[in-house]
């Protein structure tokens, strides 16, 4: 088996997938913590559906997929943010409207033009084979930007996530940081969709955050823990998908589910140990 794993990395597309995957996993895990805590996890899900619609249209028009998808998804993320802030339409209902709406548009465009081919299938469920050299460069660039912005704004993102009113009262431009978060989320979703597929990418955002929040009690440790969990799950998932010829996206999500249950069990164990110690 070890032999097999070594062999796996002699294929250039596997190395490419690994590099891309690790970057996407890192970024989505970091952003995921903020999104989950701000109750924006559904925004990530909605955006991935918008991404599918945009990719379908791009294919129909023979345009570069990411060049179309990135601006469209960023615009959608601003819209969703505005909707959930204003509270005029219920935020979650608005997200459901937009995500199913764009899915419908995507399906319609696909059936009227190319029909349900492998390209479309890959948009939905992801594929590591469809990634080109250009995709890798773009992913690298986008992830570098996300990581840099995230590290730079880390303390401010914490303040805005923890208590937006206080942050605004003490002069932080909360709206700006919300927008930064929205743009970064849109970027990571579009980039990650190539590998994970639009139906599965939001799990990469939500799972590591929720998993590490089971056991960690400080914001920083949750961040670090979810970055690690996310990366480990991605690599394991990739190896499993190679070994058993399983779909990559689904394997990674299953690893994340396993990690979630593992952390939950650990937490339960720790609690029961603590409660046994207490009475002394």
């Amino acid at each position, binding site marked *: 088996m070890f032999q097999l794993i070594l062999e796996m990395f002699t294929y250039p597309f596997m190395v490419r997938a690994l590099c891309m995957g690790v970057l996407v996993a890192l970024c989505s895990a970091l952003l995921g913590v903020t999104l989950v805590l701000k109750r924006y996890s559904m925004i990530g899900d909605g955006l991935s559906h918008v991404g599918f619609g945009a990719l379908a249209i791009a294919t129909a028009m023979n345009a570069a997929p990411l060049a179309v998808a990135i601006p469209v998804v960023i615009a959608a993320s601003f819209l969703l943010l505005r909707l959930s802030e204003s509270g005029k339409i219920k935020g979650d209902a608005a997200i459901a409207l937009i995500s199913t709406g764009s899915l419908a548009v995507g399906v319609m465009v696909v059936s009227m033009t190319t029909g349900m081919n492998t390209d479309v299938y890959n948009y939905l469920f992801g594929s590591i084979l469809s990634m080109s050299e250009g995709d890798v460069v773009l992913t690298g660039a986008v992830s570098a930007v996300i990581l840099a912005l995230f590290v730079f704004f880390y303390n401010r993102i914490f303040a805005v996530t923890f208590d937006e009113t206080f942050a605004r009262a*003490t*002069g932080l431009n909360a709206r700006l940081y919300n927008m930064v978060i929205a743009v970064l989320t849109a970027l990571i979703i579009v980039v990650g969709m190539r590998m994970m597929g639009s139906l599965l990418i939001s799990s990469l955002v939500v799972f590591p955050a929720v998993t590490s929040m089971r056991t960690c009690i400080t914001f*920083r440790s949750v961040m670090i823990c979810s970055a690690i969990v996310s990366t480990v799950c991605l690599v394991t998932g990739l190896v499993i998908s190679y070994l058993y010829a399983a779909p990559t996206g689904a394997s990674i999500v299953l690893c994340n589910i396993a990690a979630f249950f593992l952390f939950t069990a650990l937490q339960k164990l720790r609690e029961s140990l603590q409660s046994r110690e207490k009475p002394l």
Partner: protein
Amino acid sequence: MSLISCDNLAFAYDGVTVLHGLNFKIEQGDYLCILGENGAGKSTLMKGLLGLKRPSAGSVTFGEDLRAREIGYLPQQTPVQKDFPASVREVVLSGCLSGMGMRPFFGKAEKERAARNMEALEITDLADRCYRDLSGGQQQRVLLARALCATKKVILLDEPVAGLDPLVTINMYKLIERINSEMGITVIMVSHDVQAATNYASHILHLGEDRQLFFGTCEDYRYSAAYHSFMDGGKAVHIWKKAQVKKPAPAAGAAPAETVSAPTEAAPEGTAVSDAAAEKKESPAAQEKAEKEVRK
């Protein structure tokens, strides 16, 4: 020049005015207590002072050496989710952000500042605990430490003792007093506790249904009709009568704007009536008191 001065300030939600005609000045080192019933607009005024809510009329002017972002704030309710993972240290440190400009990370100065404020509020031993696991009183102190980190001059507290037990409440008031007297920070506090307000504060701002009933020093407040309308009937009249004997003429100038002096119906001669209109507004309450007195 005053630290903060409000001129004819008014606030509205969706076009409906909830508060109007606010005129008061806050000087460096004051301890102002804002009183008023539920829905009087106290929290709205706080948000206005912080620049979170735009006035519908009038203006808030800050003194030369105070910028809006140098104000510390303790919100009435902090809508922090129950499952938010954050240590006390992280929460307190986040208060230091306001003074950092574009600098991305906390330096030594910020860390020392957070440590000092945690020391002052006696939460140093909680520093590595998770904020969500603390009791309400401990959380309140953490948020107060955070607010202190955000300011050197002014701190706004919106009902800091709501939900605390009597002992912790007294501790909290003492802490706030020390913040005012030892650190020299101007305190603006919303409260429902008239007793404590008059004990600790130097100035009182009393808001009625949608307007300012009284602004002035704590001394003067005890002799004002606004104070008595707030206290429960019989007892209040008793105090009020004594007040009339001791201090028959509250100086009209000392308490500006809509300050209400003792109403004529029940007041002995010699009482200065500063504002005829205000007097009319107050007279029903005074009559009620007078009636109660007669019944006795």
